[in-house]
C-alpha cells in the first residue's frame, strides 16, 4: 500500500470525518498543538542556548538536561499526539501540502541532530559540561536545533496558507510544485 492509498483509506474512516467536521474538537486539538510550543520548544530552546554558551553558564549541562527532560518529553508527546490528530483530520490535504512535507523532512533532520549530539559530543560531557562556553560541536548542535525548531514553527504555520499559492486541485501549476506536492494529475502522468 502506497502512502497515497494509506491516506485515502485513513480519510475514509469515520473518525477522520468526525474530527474534520467537529465544531470544537478540531480547534481544541489545534490549540493544544500550538500552545504546547511553549512547553516543548520553550524548554528545548533553553537547553540549546545553554549548549551555545548563551545562558545559565554556571549550571552543568547534564544537570540542566536532567531537570528539563521530563518537561521537554511531556511537551514532545503532546506535540506528536495532537499533530497526529491534526493529520488524521485531513490526511489527503496534509499529504499533498508542500509545507507539511517540508515540515516532516525538517522534523527528521531535527531528530538526526539530537541523535548525533547524544552519540558524539554528549558522551564526552564530563570533559566540558561545566564550561561556561561548551566546545564548538556542542554549540553547533544547539544552534542547529534552535534553527530547526524555528523552521518547524514557520512551516507549520504556513500549512493552512498553501492554497494561496498552490493547490493540486488548481491546475496548471509548475511541474516542480506538482512533483513536490505529489499531485496526481488527471488524464495522464
Amino acid at each position, binding site marked *: 500500500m502506497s502512502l497515497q492509498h494509506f491516506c485515502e483509506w485513513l480519510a475514509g474512516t469515520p473518525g477522520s470525518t468526525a474530527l474534520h467536521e467537529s465544531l470544537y474538537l478540531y*480547534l481544541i486539538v489545534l*490549540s493544544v498543538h*500550538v*500552545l504546547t*510550543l*511553549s*512547553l*516543548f*520548544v*520553550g*524548554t*528545548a*530552546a*533553553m537547553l540549546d*542556548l545553554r549548549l551555545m554558551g548563551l*545562558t*545559565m*553558564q*554556571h*549550571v552543568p549541562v547534564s*544537570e540542566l538536561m*536532567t*531537570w*528539563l527532560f521530563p*518537561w521537554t518529553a511531556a511537551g514532545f508527546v503532546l506535540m506528536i499526539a495532537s499533530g497526529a490528530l491534526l493529520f488524521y483530520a485531513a490526511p489527503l490535504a496534509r499529504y499533498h501540502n508542500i509545507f507539511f512535507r517540508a515540515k516532516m523532512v525538517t522534523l527528521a533532520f531535527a531528530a538526526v541532530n539530537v541523535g548525533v549530539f547524544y552519540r558524539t559530543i554528549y558522551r564526552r560531557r564530563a570533559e566540558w559540561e561545566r564550561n561556561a562556553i561548551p566546545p564548538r560541536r556542542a554549540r553547533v548542535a544547539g544552534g542547529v536545533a534552535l534553527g530547526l*525548531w*524555528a523552521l518547524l*514553527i*514557520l512551516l507549520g*504555520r*504556513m500549512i493552512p*496558507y498553501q492554497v*494561496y*499559492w498552490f493547490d493540486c486541485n488548481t491546475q496548471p501549476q509548475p511541474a516542480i510544485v506538482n512533483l513536490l506536492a505529489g499531485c496526481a494529475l488527471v488524464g495522464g502522468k
Partner: protein
Amino acid sequence: MSVFDFFKWLQYSSLLTAMRSSSWIFPVIASFHLMGLALLGGAVLLPDLHLLGVGMRQQPFAHIARNAERWMLVSLAILLPTGILQFMCFAATKYYYLIAFWVKMAALLLALLFTFTVRRRLLLGDETGLGLVRRRIVATVSLSLWGTVALAGRLIGFP
C-alpha cells in the same frame, strides 16, 4: 478620538493596507510571534518550576532567574512588534469586538507587572526569606497569568 476611531485609523493606514494585500506577510509575522511564544514559554517556566521546588535544589534562584529574564526580554522583543502588527491588520474589524483580545491585554499587563515586581524581587532577593508556600504562590500566579495571555491569544485566532 475614541478607541474605535483609533483602531480604524490603524487598520486603514497605508502601511497596513499594503500588508493586508500580501498573502504571505501575515502568516510569516504570525510564525515569528509563535517563535516568541515558544521562547517566552521556556523563559517563564524555568524560574517558576524552580520556585515550585521542582528540581535544581542546589542552584541559586538568582542565577537561573537572571538568565531566564534576559531571554524573556528577547522573547518580548519578538512578541510585541509581531503582536502589534497582527493587531493592526484587523484592529477595527476584528480585535475591537473580541473579548479574548481585551482579556489578553489585561492579563498581559498584569503578567508583566507581576513578573517585573513581585516575582523579580522574590527571585533576585535574599534567599533566606523564601518560604516554600510563598514561592509556590508566586510561581502559580505567574503561570496562571502567562497561561491566560497564551490561551486568550489562541482564542483570538478562532474562526
